[in-house]
Each structure stands twice: as C-alpha cells, then as structure tokens.
C-alpha cells in the first residue's frame, strides 16, 4: 500500500497535478511542516499550530490538490538541516510568496534581506517596507510570516533589544539567535 501511495505521488508530480506538496521534517525544535508549489517553498509551519488547519488553509488559498510528497521537499529539508547545524548562512531554495501581499509582503521581503547573525528592529523593518510609522504592522507581518526560519523573522527585535514575539515560541527565537551568534 505504501509503495502504491509513493508511486501515486510521483506520477501526480510527473503529470503536473501536484499543486501543493508537503512533508513533515524533523528539526531540533520538533517537527516542521513544509509545503511547496512548483514555484518554490510556500509554507513553513510549526505543527503545534495544527497540521490539519494548515493543510486546509493551503487547499483553500492555493489549490485543493495538496499531497504528501516528501521528495519535493528534499532540497528545503537539506538546507534546513545544514542551517540547524550552523553550516548554512543563506538559504538558496526558491520561495513562493503567494500567501502574502501588500505591506506585509514588503515587510517580509525586507526581513528576508537581514543577513545571517544580524538583527533589525520592527521600526527598521517598517522603514524598509516603505512606511516608517507602520511599526505595529511590521510586527504583524513578522507574526504572519508564512516562511519562518527561512525568512528570518527571528532576527527582528524590539527597539530596546528585547526579544519581542515568535510564532515558534520565545525559547526557539532565543535558540536561533544563539545559533547565529547574536546572543
């Protein structure tokens, strides 16, 4: 049965029917759910937020052709493994930004330009996104980041240097900043 299912995912991919592939991968912080479209990685999520709800949201927002197909997430998994081992400082895999738009997208793309081992304040992100006064919206954009870890919202701190918030929990934000030598 398992062979039949794997074979099916491969054939669906070969026929261009695999609109959203997903896989659950291990990380030092517990399992992560990764999802990709043919354009690139589209979603990283912490399963404590509910795998089912995440998959349903992908089905509604992108396409109901959502299938578990770990092979399509291999590159993302390899890059994440190397990142967690401290051997990768810049993700190279293609990203699909379709789950975000408007000011949030600009803010998240600004976050994506923060170099490894550096931090920015919410104000600086607001400014990079084109509206210095939208600090609160920049905070919301961090919280709504569809691609945490890869798009490094953990590198965004409060102006005074306080950690701020994190979807994966503050201990994880702290651990990522330690990994990058910031803390």
């Amino acid at each position, binding site marked *: *049965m398992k*062979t*039949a*299912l794997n*074979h*099916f995912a491969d*054939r*669906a991919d070969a*026929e261009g*029917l695999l609109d*959203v592939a*997903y896989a659950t991968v291990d990380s030092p912080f517990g399992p992560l759910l990764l999802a990709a479209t043919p354009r690139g990685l589209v979603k990283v999520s912490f399963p404590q937020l509910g795998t089912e709800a995440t*998959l*349903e949201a*992908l*089905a*509604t927002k992108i*396409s*109901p*052709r*959502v*299938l*578990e197909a770990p092979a399509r997430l291999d590159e993302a998994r390899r890059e994440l493994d190397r990142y967690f081992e401290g051997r990768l400082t810049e993700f190279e895999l293609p990203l699909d930004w379709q789950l975000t738009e408007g000011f949030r997208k600009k803010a998240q793309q600004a976050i994506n330009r923060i170099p490894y081992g550096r931090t920015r304040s919410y104000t600086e992100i607001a400014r990079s996104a084109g509206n210095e006064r939208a600090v609160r919206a920049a905070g919301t954009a961090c919280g709504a980041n569809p691609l945490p870890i890869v798009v490094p919202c953990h590198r965004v701190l409060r102006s005074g240097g306080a950690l701020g918030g994190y979807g994966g929990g503050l201990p994880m934000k702290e651990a990522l900043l330690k990994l990058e030598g910031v803390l």
Partner: protein
Amino acid sequence: MWARVPSEGHSSLSHLGSSRRLINDLTATLPPFQTLLDDHAAEVMAVLRGAVGRTDADDCFQETFLAALRAYPQLEDASNLRSWLLTIAHRKAIDHHRANGRWPVPVEEVAEVAVSDPEPDGEIWSAVGALPPKQRAAVALRYACDLPHVEIAAALGCSPEAARRSLHEGLKRLRKELA
C-alpha cells in the same frame, strides 16, 4: 439544468427554499486531496483487488486516483467523496477488463507466459474476477468493502434495486462455480 428564474430579483426566489444550503454549497471548500487518500485509499485498493485481482489492482489504483486528482478542483459536490472515488474505481476496473480483452483474440501460437501463483482465497476471488463487470463490482463492493446496497448503487450509478439484483446474480453464479 438551470430553471428559468423570474427577473424581479432575489426576493422572488425565496419561496424556492432555504438559501442557506445554497450558500453553503457555493462556498464549501474541498479538503486537501491527501485526506481522500488517508481516508479511502485502503478501501479503494480492496475493491480493486476484488474486481481485477491483486496483480493489476496497483495499476487501476494509480489510474483511479490520478483521474480523481485531475478532476478534483472542479468537483462541485464534495458531500460524498467516498462514493465518488468508488465510482471512478469501478469505471477503471471496467476499462481494465475491456483493455485486457475479456473477448478472446485468436492467435496462431499460444505464448508461454508466467502466471502468478494463486493468492490466499485465490479461488474465490478469481471466480469473482470472472463475473460480468456489474456483478463483479457489486460483489466486491459488498464483501471487500462492506457497503450497503444504497451505497453500492451510488457507486455503480444504478438504482438500489438493480444493485441488489446484480449482487444476487453474482452470488448465484459464484455458488454454482465454486460448488
């Protein structure tokens, strides 16, 4: 087919019934396709094994789910995904039997081909496999999947009475074959 509706506006339609159900249907979203696999793959495989045998069931399984995946985003009624899948599986099993020519083709020489060993219960299931398509499907749906007549009818696209008849004829024939 769409009924002709009066042109005065929405209020004239209200007597037709609850708009809530219509709205629900229009905004209903399809679940991730993976849930169809998680919930129904084993059952579809069991039906296909009953219908075409273990060796060919894998192929029919792929064809069934690929056809379903192709059509899925346009599916309008997601209220019974299970019978939808079983209907597709049934069609694929029929296609399979057609393609493999249950109508023998004369050849000059009979090729020597290996045949697989009989499986457990192989005798019964190969007798099931030799039934005419409707009877075979009805028997497989009843005994491999434990479906009630109404759902067998839905999967086969016939009336419950016709489903009951196919099942009955199929069983009668099996009893004779295996006696």
